[in-house]
Every structure is written in C-alpha cells, then in structure tokens.
C-alpha cells in the first residue's frame, strides 16, 4: 500500500503524521521536532527557508518572512478580512489579476497557495526522510468553516508541492477520529472545541459503530491564538508610546520581537501566575539613547485582555449546540484541540459551559494530524470499517431576482450531497442565462461569498417558460462544489461557461508545480554536491598522508603512470569543486576512492614483504 501522510496545515504550526504498522504516529521533522512552524522566508542570500529556520530569522528579516499565510488562503484581496489583515502583517501583499492576493518576497511575487506549498514540500521531505520511501499522497486538514474557495486553494497548494491531496477533512472532525480510533465499541455524542493559531471551530459529533457522524459545525474565521498575542502586544505598546512617544508597531523588527515575546509570555502564563517580558534595546531616541521595554504581566491581566475573545468562542458553541439540537448534558466528552485551548481561562470557560471536565484523551496539538493520517489509511485500506460522515459548513445557493439569495443546500447537510434547481427561461428564444453561485447564510446575495458565475449557453430556442434546465449542484466529501446542467425536455447535458472563478487557474497551478519541482531538483543537487565535496576533501587529506610513502621508497618507481593519473584526477576534482560540477565530481570521487584502495593494498603488501 502506498504511504499516505496526514498533514495539519496550521496557521502558526503544522504537524505531520502517518499510520505506521497500524499505529497513528506523529512524524518528527528532520530537525527532530514534532511541530513545524508554518513560516516561509526568503533569506538575504536568496535561499528558501521553511519552519524553525525561517522563524529564527524572522526578527532580522521581517519583510521577507511570511507567517499565517493560512489567513489569506483562498481569499480575495479586496475582502474586508484581508484588508484588515494587511494592516498587521509585516510582509507586503499586493493585488494580482483576478483580485488574488500576492505575497511579495524580495523581487518575486508568490500566490498564497505557493507559500503554503513550500510548507507542504518541507513536510513531504520530512516524511520521505522518516519513512524512507517516496510520498505522493496526503490528507490535509482545514478549519471546518473553510469555504469552497479556501478548500480549493489548499488542494492547489498540495498539488504544487507534488502531493495528491486525496481528501480534505475538517480539523475538529479529524481530532474526533484520533479520539475514537481503535475503539469500535464507542457509542457517544461528543463535541470538539478547536481553538488554533488563527481559527476557531466547534463541532458536535456522534460516534457509533465506527461511524463518525458530524451533527453540526460552526466557527469563526478570524479568531485564534494570534489574536490573543496581539492583545498582549497592544498592551505593551500603549504605555511605551505614552512614555516615549514611539509607536513600536511601526518598526517591523521591534514588532516581530514584541510578537515573539507576547506569544512566549502567553504560553508561560498557562503554567505560572506572572511572567516578565524583557526586551532590551527595543528602540532608541537621539536624545536619550537606547530604550528598553520591561514589563511584568499576570495571568489575570491576560485574561482581562482576552475576555471578549473567549466569550466569542462560547457564543459559537451555544449556536452550534442549538443547531445540533443537543444539550450540553447529552455530550459525553468535550475534546479540547489547538494550542490556544491550553489557556487555563479557555479550559475553565469550556468546563463551565458544558458542566464537565474537558477530555484529556487527545493531544491538543497532534490530534488533528493523527486523525488525518487515520482517514488517509482508512480510505486506502479495503478492510477498514471506519467511516467519516461530515457536513457542509455553509449553505449553498444562487442569486435570484432582486439580489436575494436562495438556499439550495442548507448548512449542516451531510456530504457528499447534491441538489437540483429548475431554471426556466424568462424571454422568448432565450439562448443564454447567467447563474451566480454563492455560499453563506445571509438572505442578501452580495453579503455571501461568491463561489463563481457561469453561463448556460446555447439554450434550446423556444417561447419563454417552455425550456426548463435542471441545474445540479454537487458537494463532494471534501466539501468542494461542482455544478452541471441538464435540459429537462431533451435530457441533454447543457454546456456551461465559467465567467468568474475563485483561485488559481489550472495553468497557474501547473506553472507553480513546475517551479517547485525545479527548486526541489536544485535543492537535491545542492545536497548531493555538498556530500561529494565532503567526500573529496576527505580523500584529499588521506592522499596527503600517503604522499611521502608513494613518492619515495620502492613503490615510487613501480607506480609511474598511475601516479600521473592520480595527480590529474586530484587536480580535476579541485576544479570541479570550484565549478560546482556535481556529476563530474561524483566520477572523480569514485576514481579516487578506487585508487586509494589499490594504493593502500600495494603499500600493505610491500610493508609485509620488507618485514
């Protein structure tokens, strides 16, 4: 069976897992860590850095370091949420054609899926190094409330990274899989509270006979650990600017240091009551010289600063529970997932709302990736008895006359599903009709998210009202929407022309995939070159040591021609190292290795003979 990996592609951190010999296992990255920061940077020397390497240099290279790309993925540049983000992101985002946000790193502009693909490529390489086999299939998780466009973009990112994303699953559902894995007798209703770095999800599930059935789900697109960090940053910046008249947020390097310090102190406050934030030389004034920022923050302060954020999560929980028609007392377990769910205040609030101690059976940061790996293995394994029944997080519908939104598939409908909409011509001999597909809950079409527009073309000519076209909407198990149309009277497929579409075009994805492949090849060549150079240098040293024995004594005369060849090869190897000729250097290294064995053998025989 081909290996399939599970990837939790998070806003701040990503986790990689696979089912190995039937056991879901987190795969550490090549540096040995189980969490890989979802950070990408282009270093000053032009090299691509991903993960902790990128995070480490973020302070000194804030302009060219991308954090939290997940908050941008699958969104339009002009969207309110994106515009709001732009004010706080240290890197430069510009609008490309098609209203696509593009991230500017050095001289190059990257689409958001390309940036996510860099993280995925890194994880793919980690998986290959660990499993010692090529990996091409993956299950990637997304927040449950992600729209169709965001799911598509995530899938595109996978393709660019050279991964076939065999399934996109929702993060809370994935955590539930990790919880219920290997317990076929489990029969209960559970809730998953998933507060990650950038997103919040809440799902109610029923687990019975190996079927994981989502009853209802909901979330907040812009609520996560980073918002908590920002509150701390603001709390630090306010008094400083009052005292010194300097807004530290305008200095990118200072801002990055503040962010790091805020995140660190927030994490520490989960364990201790107070902690110190100490940022020496954070800024400077010509009059007073260097300025330092030093502050003590208490857990109660953090809780006050973030009270409204916690309350927002609770509001979502109440809404989803009422939609699921489940009362808190019916739930037999509440899983806490996501790094931010470690905060004691969050745990307390959850405990109060559900009147029960949250479950500690799953690892808050690893459960999602493990669940993805489990789902991947279950899909490929024929004997697998497990089944996941997820729901669509948003209602799907079309725009109707007057700018209203008509729902065709209601939210929380189990996927895969499909629905029809009968379209009737309104004019005599009407040939074309435009259909606008949207996702959302508002009654007004423009307030919902546009999935796409398409034209029904070449409609059979007839008096108005006589031609009926059945438009069919399908939502796949990944939550991805597709549309087709059928002429009711003739039963013929109706052709569709796409006039507006979210995300990257097929061509863009292909181009990006090629670019990523090229990078991988260079990267691989680089690694090989370094290896060979290292070997060559070691050989040079060994020949240096043998040199006196080879050039003097009884052997010197007999070697003759071989010595000439050796000298040429050594000289060639040095040239090849200079010119970075990986292939040629490989040949030279092989020759040198062979010669070393031969000469050593000869010397041994002479040594033995002379004794």
């Amino acid at each position, binding site marked *: 069976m081909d290996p399939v990996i599970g990837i939790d592609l998070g806003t701040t951190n990503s986790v990689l897992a696979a089912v190995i010999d039937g056991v879901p296992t987190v795969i550490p990255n090549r540096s040995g860590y189980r969490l890989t920061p979802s950070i990408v940077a282009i270093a000053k020397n032009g090299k691509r850095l991903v993960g902790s390497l990128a995070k480490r240099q973020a302070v000194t290279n804030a302009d060219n370091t991308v954090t939290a790309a997940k908050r941008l993925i699958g969104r339009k540049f002009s969207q309110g949420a994106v515009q709001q983000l732009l004010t706080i992101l240290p890197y430069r985002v510009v609008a490309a054609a098609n209203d696509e946000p593009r991230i500017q790193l050095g001289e190059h502009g990257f689409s958001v899926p390309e940036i996510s693909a860099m993280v995925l490529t890194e994880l793919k390489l980690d998986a290959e190094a660990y499993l010692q086999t090529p990996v091409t299939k993956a299950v990637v998780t997304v927040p449950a409330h992600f729209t169709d466009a965001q799911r598509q973009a995530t899938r595109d990112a996978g393709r660019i990274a050279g991964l076939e994303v065999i399934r996109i699953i929702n993060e809370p559902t994935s955590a539930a899989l990790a919880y219920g894995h290997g317990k076929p007798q489990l029969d209960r209703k559970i809730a998953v509270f998933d507060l990650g770095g950038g997103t919040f999800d809440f799902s109610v599930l029923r687990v019975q006979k190996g079927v994981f059935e989502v009853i209802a789900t909901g979330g907040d697109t812009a609520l996560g650990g980073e918002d908590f960090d920002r509150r701390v940053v603001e709390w630090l910046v306010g008094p400083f600017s009052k005292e010194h008249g300097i807004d530290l947020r305008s200095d990118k390097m200072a801002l990055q240091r503040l962010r790091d310090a805020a995140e660190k102190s927030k994490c520490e406050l989960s364990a201790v009551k107070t902690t110190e934030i100490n940022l020496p030389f954070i800024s400077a004034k010509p009059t007073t010289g260097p300025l330092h920022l030093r502050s003590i923050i208490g857990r109660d302060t953090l809780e006050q600063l973030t009270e409204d954020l916690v309350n927002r999560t609770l509001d979502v929980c109440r809404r989803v529970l009422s939609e699921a028609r489940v009362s808190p007392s019916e739930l037999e377990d509440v899983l806490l997932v996501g790094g931010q769910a470690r905060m004691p205040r969050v745990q307390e609030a959850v405990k109060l709302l559900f009147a029960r101690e949250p479950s500690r059976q799953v690892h808050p940061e690893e459960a999602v990736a493990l669940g993805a790996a489990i789902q991947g293995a279950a899909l490929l394994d024929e004997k697998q008895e497990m089944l996941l029944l997820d729901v669509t997080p948003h209602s799907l519908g079309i725009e109707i006359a007057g700018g209203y939104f008509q729902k065709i598939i209601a939210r929380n409908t189990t996927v*895969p599903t499909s629905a029809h909409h009968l379209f009737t011509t309104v004019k005599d001999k009407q040939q074309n009709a435009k259909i606008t597909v949207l996702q959302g809950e508002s009654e007004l079409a423009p307030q919902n998210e546009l999935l796409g527009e398409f034209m029904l073309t070449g409609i059979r000519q007839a008096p108005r009202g006589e031609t009926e076209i059945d438009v069919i909407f399908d939502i796949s198990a990944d939550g991805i929407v597709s549309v087709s149309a059928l002429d009711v009277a003739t039963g013929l497929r109706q052709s569709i022309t796409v006039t507006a*579409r979210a995300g990257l075009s097929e061509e863009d994805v292909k181009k990006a995939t090629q670019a990523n492949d090229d990078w991988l090849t260079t990267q691989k060549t680089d690694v090989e070159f370094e290896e060979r150079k290292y070997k060559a240098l070691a050989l040079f040293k060994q020949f240096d040591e043998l040199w006196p024995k080879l050039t003097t004594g009884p052997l010197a005369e007999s070697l003759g021609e071989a010595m000439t060849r050796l000298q040429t090869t050594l000289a060639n190897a040095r040239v090849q190292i200079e010119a970075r000729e990986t292939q040629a250097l490989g040949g030279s290294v092989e020759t040198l290795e062979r010669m070393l064995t031969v000469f050593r053998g000869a010397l041994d025989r002479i040594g033995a003979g002379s004794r």
Partner: protein
Amino acid sequence: MRYAMLHKSDASPDSEAGDTDLPVDVQIELLALQQPGRAISHYEVLGLDATADPIAIRSAYLARSKRFHPDAWYGKKLAQFGPLLADTFRRVSEAHAVLSEAESRATYDASRTSGVSAKERTAVTARAEVRAEEDRRADERRRRVFHTKGFARLGAARKLFEDAQALEERGERGLALQALKAARDLDPTRKEIAARLGELELLAVKSRAQQMLARARAEEQQGDASAALVSYQAAMRHDPASVTALLGAARAAVHEHDFANAAAWAAKAVEYAPKAAEGRLLLARAQIGLSQKALAKATLAQLLAQHPDQKEARALLKSL
C-alpha cells in the same frame, strides 16, 4: 468550485457498463434503488418498512452508510456506479434525516398515500396513537403540578423553601425571593414561608433604601442639592420610616427653597425622632421660609428646651 465542463457526448470510454470492481451484490442493490417512474420511499431506501422503530432506523442508516458512502469504495473502479453510489448515499442520508425525528417522520407518514401496505398503515396509525397518548400524558402531568392540592404540591413548596434558604446563604437574595414567592403560590398556608418572604422583602427594600441614601449623601457632598433631593425621596419611598432619609430630604428641600415639602418631612422626622435637634431646626427653617413666624418660634423654643446649648437655634430665635 469545480465546473463540470460537459459536452453533449459525455460517454467516456471508462463509463462502459460492467467494467467495475464493485461487488455484484452491491451493484444489484444499487440498481434496485433506481426504478424510473416509481417513487422509492425513505423506508425502502433504508431497507425497512414503516413499522421500524427508531433503533432499527439508526442501525440501518449506519450499515447502509458504510455500504454506499463513496469513501467505502475509494480507489475502486466504479464506472457508471460512481454517481449511483453518491446519489444512493444522499438518499440514505436524507431518509435518515426525515425518519430519525418523530415529528418529521409523522409528517412524512401522513404525506404517503400510495404504495403503503395495510400492515404499514396500521403501524403508522399505531405510532400516531402512541404519540398522541404521550402528548396527552405529558400535558396531564403539567396540569397536575399546577392544580393538585395534594402532597406533591406541598413537597414542591418545601423544596423551593429549602432552595431559597440555600440561595440566601450564598447571598443571592434576588433569586431567593423568587423561589420564596413561587413557594408561597404553591402553599399559601404555611406561615414559615410567608414570614420568611416578608422578612426578605423588607430586607431587600431596606438595602435598596440604604443604596439610595448613600447616593444621596454623595450627591449632597458634591453640592448637587436637587439630585440629592430626588435620591432622598427615592430612599423614603423604599423605607418611609427612615429618619435619615427624611432629614436629608428636608435639608435638600430647604436648600432648594421647597419649604412646604421641607416642613412636612421635617415634621415627620421630629415625630419619629423627637429628641434629635436637626429635625426641629429644619422644621423651624421651613416654617420661617413659609412665613409662619409664630410656629417657628414655638418650634425653636421646644428645641432649646431640649438642647439649651444649640447656638444656631438661639441665633434664629433672636433674628425672629
């Protein structure tokens, strides 16, 4: 969103019939559920008849989901059965959604007219009767709670009384009051409850009066006599026997030259606390304000009889 770029000839080579990895029994079941020209009921989709109980519906749903969900056959060659699987799963899911809730199931049952066997019809009628009976019983239970004069009612009252005591101990006076009121409504004869309710109501009123007094004092100190007057009056409404409130109101009223009211309140204060100097002094000032000099003189004389060293009173008397 993906768009199916479909053309009028969409029969691709791999949609040839027969070229599939799907087991034959699954193929047969899928085809059996596709009968053009005949509506297939939700019960049939789940392989049940209308007599099925909720547990049977649930387990049929789970079993059929595992069988017909496209994920169960992931990576298999499905050919023309691919769309069929997805459609069948959707119908299974829909059937479960309708039949798993008593209300939507009843509506659905009522809407079915054709293709229903006599046995099924009996089951549906029986189920409707059971539901009606359950509703009737629940209704009766509710009515009984409100209308019995029996022990249950007294017990409930006692329970509420105990709850109220617990709430009071925790400082939740408002909730305690509500519980006691409910208890009194259930059992008006029990003196304990009525007495405690009275005490608590008094306490609540007193504490509100105290709050208003504190506010009035603060306003007075800030020199805002008209606001203080309003607050003192409010305090008086909550606790009409409060001398402090009466005196405060009189003081503020004198300040605001509202002598008629000031006189009335001061007189009341004197009535409740005849020994306090301030009451008579305020009364005298109000009387002077009302040009009732003779009365004022008498008041001041009484005051000086009690407190011979009251300089202010002496000065006032002299000015008269």
